[in-house]
C-alpha cells in the first residue's frame, strides 16, 4: 500500500495517483508507518523505527471478538500477508472430503466486512438446510414470507439507495424486477466507494460480445461445457452444484429470452460462467495481493481452516454432524476450534468455470450478492448499460490466478446467472426465501459498526473493513523546531511577559538662552569698517610699497613704450568688482598716463565687457585725452573658453570678423588697432582675474602659444594660485587684492578708492584676525572642558 503524503489515504501498490485527492504518489516498496512515516517491508508487523503496529488488527474469532472500531470510509488498509499455508486443494470432481488440518492463519481482513454484507438469514442458510451435504431441493414452506420480509435489511437499504438516486421511479418489469438504474447513478456513488470495493466489482470488458449472441455464462449447460471444457462441474461439491443447478434452472427460462439484452458488465460479473480463461477479470484488491502473491498458494492443497472465513464455514456441509442449531454469525465457533474432521472447507471447491477461466475476483460479500441475483435469474432491461467506471477498471489476469480458491468458493457455490443488480425482495427465489429463518437471531457481527450514510452502501452496517485506530491516516509528523528557535521564542516570550517599564527620560533642562556670537561679530565688523571713514587717524593709513610685488608690477608698466598695445582682460563679474575695480582703475589710469593703446576684452563672463567699458570710460574721463576707438578699444566678450583663447592665441584678432563692443564695427575700422592681430605687437597682457580659472586658462592656452608677456592683477583669494605662476616666470608681474591696489596707488601717486578704503580694510582685517584668535581660544578651552567632563 502506498500512503498518500497529501491526504493520508492508503492506495494500492502501483498506483500513481491518490484515489482520494489525486495527488501523485511516491512509490514505496513496503509499508509506511502511519505514526512516524518510516517505510517498512511488507513482512513487518510492527514498525522497525517506532514500534507502532503496521498491520491493523483484524477481526478476532467469534469467541473473543470485540466490537471493531468504526470503519473508516474510503480507507483500504494494509494487511499483513498471510502466512504461507498449505496450497489450496485442487478442485476435484469427487465429493469433498474433510481437508487435513492445517495451521490456522489469520483470515484476510475484508472477509468479515464482506460477510457483513450478508444478512443473518443468509448466514443461517446452512441452518435452514437439514443436511449440508444433501442437495437443496425445495424451499420450505414455512420460510415463505412477504417480499419485504424476505429481503434483509441490507437489501432493502441498498435498493432504497438505488431508487433514491434515480430521478424517476423505477419501472417494474414484467418479471417484477425494476430496471437497473442508469450508469450515472453508480457513477456518482463510485467515488465514495473504497478501493477494495471498487476493484472487485469492476468488470473489464475484454471482448464485448455481440448483442445478438447470448453470453457465454448464460448459455445452456451444454454450451458452457463446450466453451469451457476444462472446467469440470464435478469439482464443486455436490451440495453447491445442486444449489447452483437449481438456481440456473429457475433462471434459465428468463435468461433465454433476454440474453442478448444483458449488458457486458453483467456478463463479466458471471465469475463462474466466464468462458474465456485469458480474460483478465476485475482488479485484485490490495488486500488480496499478499496472499495472492504467495507462491505457496499455487499447489492444489486444501485450504486450511484458518483460511476459511467464518461465514463460509457456516455454509460448509457437515458430513458427520447433523444440522446444528442455528446460531448467530458472531457466535459461530472459529474455524480453528472446529475439529478438522468435522469441517469441510469450501476452499478446495473450485467451480469448473473458475478453474478453467479465472476471470474475476470478487469479494465474498459481493459474490454472495451476485449469487443472489443470479438466483433470481431475471434479465436486466435492455436499457441498462455498463457504467463507465466498470469499463475503466483493468483486470490483470495474472493477479486473478493468484486468488485463493477459498475466495472463489462462494462464487462457485452459488450459481451466478444474472447481473449484480440487487435483487428485489420479490426477486428472491422461493427456494432461497425458504431458507430464510422466520425470525432473525440475536444481533450479530453484521449489526455492529456504523451504518454507511451515503453511497451505494448506504444503510449497510459494517461493510467496510475493520480498521484499527493505529492504521488510520495521520498527518505527517511535524519536525520539531530546532533548539535555537526555541531559545529565541522563549526569549521573545520572556520579553513580552516582562512588565513594560517606562524609559527613564531625563528631565528636560530649562531652555537656557544660547549666547550666540554672530550679532556681536556683525556689529564689530560694521564698526571696524565704518569708524575709519569718520576717524581721520584711521583713514590715513600708510602703505608700504618698497619691495612689494606691486612695485614690480608698477615697474613693468612704467617700462612700456608709448603707444604700446596693452591688452586688458576683464575676467571678473560685478560681484567681485568691489575688489577688482580698485586694481583695474589704477592700472588703466597708469596705462593711460603712459600713453598705451588699451584693448579691453572679456573671456570668462559677458558682464566683463560692460565692466571694462565702465572702467575705461571712467579712466578716460579722468585722464581727459583718451578717446574710444583711438586710444582704447573694447572688443567685448570672446566666447569659447579654452577654445576661444586657443583660437585667439593661434589666429590673433581677425580684423574682418572681430567687432568692438561699443560701436559694433569690425576691427579694420580702427586703424590704430590693426596690428593687434599679431601677438608679437602686443607689449603686455594684463589679466584681471577675480577667480583662478581665467588666469590659468590664459597661461595655459595663450601664453605658451602666443609667447605674450602676462601680468595679472588678481583678487586676494586668487593670489596663492597666481603666485605659483609668478614663481615659474609665467607671470611677469602680479598684483593682488586691496593691498596691491593700494600699493600701486601709492607708487603711482594716485589717491583712489584703495587708499581711501585702506583704513577700513586694515581695521576690518585686524578685527577679523582678533575674532579668529578669540574663536580658537574659546574652542580650545571648551574642548578641554569637554574632555574634563
Amino acid at each position, binding site marked *: 500500500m502506498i500512503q498518500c503524503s497529501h491526504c493520508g489515504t492508503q492506495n494500492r501498490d502501483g498506483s500513481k495517483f491518490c484515489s482520494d485527492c489525486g495527488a501523485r504518489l511516491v512509490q514505496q516498496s513496503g509499508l509506511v508507518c502511519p505514526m512516524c512515516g518510516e517505510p517498512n517491508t511488507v513482512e513487518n508487523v510492527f514498525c522497525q523505527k517506532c514500534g507502532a503496529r503496521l498491520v491493523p488488527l483484524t477481526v478476532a474469532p467469534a469467541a473473543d471478538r470485540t466490537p471493531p472500531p468504526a470503519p473508516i470510509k474510503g480507507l483500504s488498509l494494509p494487511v499483513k500477508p498471510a502466512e504461507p499455508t498449505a496450497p489450496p486443494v485442487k478442485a476435484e470432481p469427487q465429493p469433498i472430503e474433510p481437508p487435513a488440518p492445517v495451521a490456522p492463519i489469520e483470515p484476510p481482513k475484508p472477509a468479515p466486512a464482506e460477510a457483513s454484507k450478508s444478512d443473518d438469514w443468509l448466514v443461517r442458510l446452512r441452518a435452514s438446510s437439514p443436511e449440508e451435504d444433501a442437495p437443496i431441493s425445495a424451499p420450505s414452506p414455512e420460510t415463505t414470507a412477504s417480499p419485504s420480509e424476505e429481503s434483509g435489511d441490507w437489501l432493502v437499504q441498498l435498493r432504497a439507495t438505488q431508487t433514491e438516486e434515480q430521478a424517476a421511479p423505477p419501472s417494474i418489469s414484467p418479471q417484477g424486477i425494476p430496471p437497473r438504474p442508469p450508469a450515472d447513478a453508480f457513477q456518482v456513488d463510485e467515488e465514495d466507494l473504497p478501493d477494495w470495493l471498487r476493484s472487485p466489482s469492476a468488470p473489464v470488458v475484454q471482448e464485448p460480445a455481440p448483442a445478438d449472441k447470448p453470453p457465454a455464462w448464460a448459455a445452456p449447460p451444454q454450451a458452457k461445457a463446450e466453451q469451457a471444457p476444462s472446467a469440470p462441474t464435478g469439482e464443486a461439491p455436490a451440495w453447491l452444484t445442486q444449489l447452483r443447478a437449481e438456481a440456473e434452472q429457475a433462471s434459465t427460462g428468463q435468461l433465454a429470452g433476454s440474453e442478448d439484452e444483458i449488458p457486458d458488465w453483467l456478463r463479466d460479473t458471471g465469475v463462474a460462467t466466464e468462458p474465456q480463461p485469458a480474460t483478465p477479470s476485475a482488479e485484485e484488491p490490495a488486500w488480496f495481493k499478499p496472499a495472492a502473491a504467495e507462491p505457496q498458494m499455487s499447489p492444489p492443497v486444501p485450504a486450511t481452516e484458518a483460511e476459511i472465513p467464518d461465514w463460509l464455514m457456516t455454509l460448509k456441509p457437515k458430513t458427520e454432524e447433523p444440522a446444528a442449531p442455528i446460531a448467530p454469525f458472531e457466535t459461530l465457533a472459529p474455524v480453528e476450534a472446529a475439529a478438522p474432521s468435522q469441517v469441510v472447507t469450501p476452499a478446495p471447491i473450485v467451480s469448473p468455470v473458475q478453474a478453467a477461466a479465472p476471470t474475476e475476483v470478487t469479494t465474498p460479500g459481493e459474490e454472495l450478492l451476485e449469487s443472489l441475483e443470479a438466483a433470481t435469474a431475471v434479465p436486466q432491461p435492455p436499457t441498462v448499460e455498463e457504467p463507465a467506471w466498470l469499463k475503466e477498471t483493468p483486470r490483470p489476469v495474472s493477479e486473478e490466478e493468484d486468488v485463493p480458491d477459498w475466495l472463489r468458493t462462494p462464487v462457485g457455490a452459488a450459481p451466478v446467472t444474472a447481473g449484480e443488480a440487487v435483487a428485489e425482495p420479490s426477486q428472491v427465489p422461493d427456494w432461497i426465501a425458504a431458507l430464510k429463518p422466520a425470525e432473525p437471531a440475536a444481533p450479530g457481527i453484521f449489526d455492529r459498526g456504523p451504518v454507511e450514510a451515503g453511497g451505494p452502501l448506504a444503510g449497510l452496517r459494517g461493510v467496510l473493513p475493520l480498521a484499527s485506530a493505529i492504521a488510520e491516516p495521520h498527518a505527517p509528523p511535524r519536525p520539531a523546531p530546532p533548539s535555537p528557535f526555541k531559545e529565541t521564542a522563549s526569549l521573545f516570550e520572556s520579553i513580552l511577559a516582562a512588565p513594560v517599564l517606562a524609559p527613564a527620560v531625563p528631565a528636560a533642562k530649562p531652555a537656557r538662552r544660547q549666547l550666540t556670537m554672530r550679532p556681536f561679530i*556683525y556689529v564689530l565688523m*560694521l564698526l571696524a*569698517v*565704518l569708524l575709519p*571713514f*569718520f576717524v581721520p587717524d584711521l583713514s590715513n593709513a600708510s602703505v608700504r610699497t618698497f619691495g612689494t610685488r606691486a612695485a614690480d608690477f608698477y615697474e613693468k608698466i612704467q617700462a612700456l613704450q608709448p603707444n604700446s598695445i596693452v591688452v586688458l582682460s576683464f575676467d571678473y*563679474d*560685478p560681484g*567681485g568688482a*568691489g*575688489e577688482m*575695480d*580698485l586694481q583695474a582703475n589704477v592700472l588703466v589710469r597708469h596705462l593711460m598716463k603712459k600713453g598705451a593703446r588699451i584693448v579691453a576684452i572679456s573671456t570668462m*563672463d*559677458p*558682464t566683463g*565687457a*560692460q565692466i571694462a567699458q565702465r572702467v575705461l570710460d*571712467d579712466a578716460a574721463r579722468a585722464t581727459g585725452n583718451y578717446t574710444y576707438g583711438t586710444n582704447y578699444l573694447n572688443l*567685448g*566678450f570672446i*566666447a569659447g*573658453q*579654452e*577654445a576661444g583663447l*586657443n583660437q585667439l592665441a593661434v589666429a590673433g584678432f581677425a580684423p574682418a*570678423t572681430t*567687432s568692438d*563692443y561699443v560701436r*559694433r564695427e569690425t576691427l579694420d575700422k580702427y586703424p590704430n588697432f590693426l596690428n593687434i592681430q599679431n601677438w608679437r605687437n602686443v607689449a603686455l597682457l594684463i589679466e584681471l582675474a577675480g577667480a583662478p580659472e581665467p588666469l*590659468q*586658462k590664459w*597661461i*595655459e*592656452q595663450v*601664453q*605658451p602659444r602666443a609667447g605674450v608677456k602676462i601680468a595679472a592683477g588678481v*583678487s*586676494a*583669494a*586668487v*593670489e*596663492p594660485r597666481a603666485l*605659483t*605662476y609668478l*614663481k*615659474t616666470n*609665467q607671470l611677469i608681474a602680479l598684483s*593682488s*587684492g*586691496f*593691498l596691491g591696489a593700494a600699493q600701486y596707488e601709492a607708487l603711482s601717486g594716485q589717491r583712489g*578708492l584703495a587708499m*581711501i*578704503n585702506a583704513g*577700513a*580694510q586694515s581695521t*576690518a*582685517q585686524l578685527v*577679523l584676525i582678533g575674532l579668529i584668535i578669540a574663536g580658537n581660544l574659546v574652542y580650545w578651552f571648551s574642548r578641554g572642558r569637554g574632555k574634563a567632563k
Partner: protein
Amino acid sequence: MTTDPIGIWVGAILTLLVFSYLLGDTPLFRLAQAIFVGVTIGYAATAAVYLVLLPMLFDQLLVNPVLIIPLILGLLLLTKLRASWPSVGNISIAFLFGVGGALALGGALGGTLLPQLAATIVPLDSLENIMLVLGTIGALLSFRFMRPQQPRVATRALELIGRGWGYVGRWFVLVAFGALFAGTAVSRVSILVNRVYFLLHDWIQVVR
C-alpha cells in the same frame, strides 16, 4: 563710480536687502537674490546674442558658409531641452566636451604641470628653495595612502621616512589652505568695505 541717482538708489536698496541676510534668510534677501540672478541671466543672454551670435555667426554666415556647422551644432543643443526629444544634441555635447577636454588637458600639461615641476628643480642654495623642495615633496607624500603589507627592512625605513616627510608636508598643505582662506577673507572684506563706502559716499554722501 556712477552718478546716476536712480542707479545709486537701486544699488543702495539692493545692498541693504543683501545685508538683511545678517538677520536671517529674510524675504528681502530672497528678493534681492532673485533680482540679481535674473539680471545676471538676462544680461548674459543679451550679451551672448549681441556679442557672440550676431557679430561672430549670423553677420558672417553669408561670408563664411563654413559657419553653418557651428550653427547646426548649436541648434542641436536645443534638443536637450526635453529628455523625450531625440538625443541628437549629444553630438554637440560630445563635440564640446571633446574639444574642451583636449584643450584643457593639453594646456594643463604644458602650461601648469610641467612648468611647476620644472620650478621645483632648483638649487638648494637658499632656505626658500629648500623649503620649496621639502614642502612640495612633503605635500605629495602627505597624499600617499598606500603602504606595503609586508614591508622589508629597507622598505620599512623608507616607509618611516615617507610617513614623517608626509607629516611635514601636511603642514605645508595646511599653510597653503590657510593662505587661501586668508586671501578669501581679505577679498570679501574688501567687497564689504567697497559696499559701505558706496552707501556712505554715493548714497548717503556722508563721506567724501
